[in-house]
């Protein structure tokens, strides 16, 4: 077990700067998840920690040791690749035992450790097979097994579940989380999948174009996104973000609609962006005072939820209703919300305003 400290880490490919001045402390034993749009540098960051990419600037410490120039094999880390990267010419047992074999461990010990890992991952009957004789899920397990056998100080995962079908992904998600609880080893995990990030992480790091937008516990990111990028990125469907400014009669959106607000809640005259999650909009009771008059554009019932898109002035507002609502397209509708659920951002900087909690 070890902490991982990134201190002003930068990465350039020629003149292209992919990561710049990145600071991050991964605590000993935590499961840290990196999320962010495609191409934001998640894999690059992971590969820097693994030692597969050189560092252009800054300092990297694993367990307190400076490892900038250290070869991957000396860093005592294990990595699970998105493609699994199993050795095609080696059996499952040989794949899993490869690192121990290279470390010249006694045969009996290798066999014992491989078997232990195989038991944890339900790979018992497959040890003599070759990777091509395995299903996608089994290959994924072998890749995990290969990492576990090493008993590393840090696990690195690069989208390990993205090649699996939805059902298997849910299952493996739970297994990785259980594994983390069981081993207590530091894990750094890259994913595209919001649900994966929200359900598994101790802390989430939101990356954007090579820098960190926010670090925090999953619910912290959900409840208090630090800026517009995180607000938009975390949560599905994503938050309604409506630019406008406070006027006498409420919050006037650039799209023309007016959101009634208790006066004094927000500074007047400033360019702001109002955010509210689709889940926090409700059908308003007929006599509700602060309702938004909207028009239905589109609705998609999924069975236990109904996704509805509304027009509000020239803005589009998305809402997700838990209960079934029967409304026709083009009809007028009234939306209610709890002002405490509002998020407010400065339009120019994109930063969250502290005015409303």
């Amino acid at each position, binding site marked *: 077990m070890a902490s991982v400290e990134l201190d002003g880490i930068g990465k350039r490919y020629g003149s292209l700067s992919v990561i710049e001045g990145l600071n991050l402390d991964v605590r000993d034993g935590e499961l840290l998840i990196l999320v962010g749009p495609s191409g934001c540098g998640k894999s690059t960051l992971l590969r820097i920690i693994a030692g597969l990419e050189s560092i252009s600037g800054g300092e990297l410490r694993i367990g307190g040791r400076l490892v900038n120039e250290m*070869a*991957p094999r000396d860093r005592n880390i294990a990595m699970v*690749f998105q493609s699994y990267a199993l*050795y095609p010419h080696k059996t499952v047992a040989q794949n899993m035992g490869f690192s121990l074999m290279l470390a010249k461990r006694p045969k009996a010990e290798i066999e014992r450790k491989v078997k232990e890992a195989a038991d944890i991952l339900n790979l018992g009957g497959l040890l003599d097979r070759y990777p091509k004789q395995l299903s996608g899920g089994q290959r994924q397990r072998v890749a995990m097994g290969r990492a576990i056998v090493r008993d590393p100080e840090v696990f690195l995962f690069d989208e390990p579940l993205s090649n699996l079908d939805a059902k298997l992904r849910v299952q493996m998600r739970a297994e990785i989380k259980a594994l983390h609880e069981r081993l207590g080893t530091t894990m750094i995990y890259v994913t595209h999948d919001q649900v994966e990030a929200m359900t598994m992480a101790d802390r989430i790091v939101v990356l954007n174009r090579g820098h960190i937008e926010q670090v925090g516990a999953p619910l912290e990111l959900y409840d208090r996104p630090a800026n517009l990028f995180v607000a938009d990125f975390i949560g599905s469907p994503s938050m309604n973000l409506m630019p406008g400014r406070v006027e006498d009669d409420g919050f006037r959106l650039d799209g023309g609609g007016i959101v009634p607000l208790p006066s004094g809640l927000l500074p007047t005259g400033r360019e702001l962006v109002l955010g509210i999650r689709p889940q926090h909009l409700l059908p308003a009771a007929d006599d509700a005072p602060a309702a938004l008059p909207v028009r239905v554009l589109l609705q998609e019932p999924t069975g236990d939820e109904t996704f509805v898109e509304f027009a509000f002035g020239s803005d589009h507002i998305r809402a997700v209703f838990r209960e079934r609502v029967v409304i026709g397209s083009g009809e007028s509708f009234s939306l209610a919300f709890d002002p405490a659920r509002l998020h407010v951002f400065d339009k120019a900087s994109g930063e969250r305003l502290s005015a409303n909690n």
Partner: protein
Amino acid sequence: MSRRANPRHEAFLDWVTAIAVFLLLSPIAWVFLASVRPDRDIMSASLVPTSVTFVHFLSLFQRTDFMIALANSLVVGIVVALLTVAIAVPASYSISRFRYVGRDVMAALILGTQMLPGVAVMVPIVVIVRSLGLTNTLTALIFIHLALGLPIAVWMLRGYIDSVPRELEEAAMIDGTGQIGAMLRITFPLIRPAVVAVGTFAFVLSWGEYLMALALISKTEVKTLPLALQTLFDPYSFSWGEVMAGGVVIALPTIVLFLMFRNQLVGGLTSGGVKG
């Protein structure tokens, strides 16, 4: 496009294949048959031998010049095959895996040498070999055969190494190997069929090479098989059967090598290591 869609096309293609195979095989078959027939039998129109004899092989193997040539060809061929592999593997690995200044230019140059017809470079080569004082040596022949086969060998291997995902080596380097270790333990076993193919190819190329040998070698002690075969056309004591037996001896290793490494040559990479 379904193959079964048009049986007439399929039958047509089968016939084309059959004709091609026949055209390729009939001279070789003729050589093999002729080598075991009595001399007076060979020129008869019939393909079926009336009697089978090995006198041609016996008299061939009793000629010291032929046996020396056989040994020379084996030595040159084996050394060329080994050196080709020893040079082409690291060279192609470097081109495929590393980025450095001049890499693409070098790769293009290597391929570019293949565009020159052999005859065009023959004169300069002969001049160079002469000025080095290496005429009538096997060393010169080894170097030239190496130069003839290496470019293709490098390009063949490069394609194979490109197809081995970089991540396999990276996984190995995390598991505890260095860069060289990853190459030897992961990539090398995976491209072994191609390495065998390249070695075989280099041997066969050297074994049958005639033009450069003719230009550089005149002494009996250093002649290779193709040259020795030519001396069999002795205007005073000439035997078709012996010439044919010589042809068989030249053709045999190619066929044996192919049969031995057939699986390696046609077998691709073992798949399944990485998804997709």
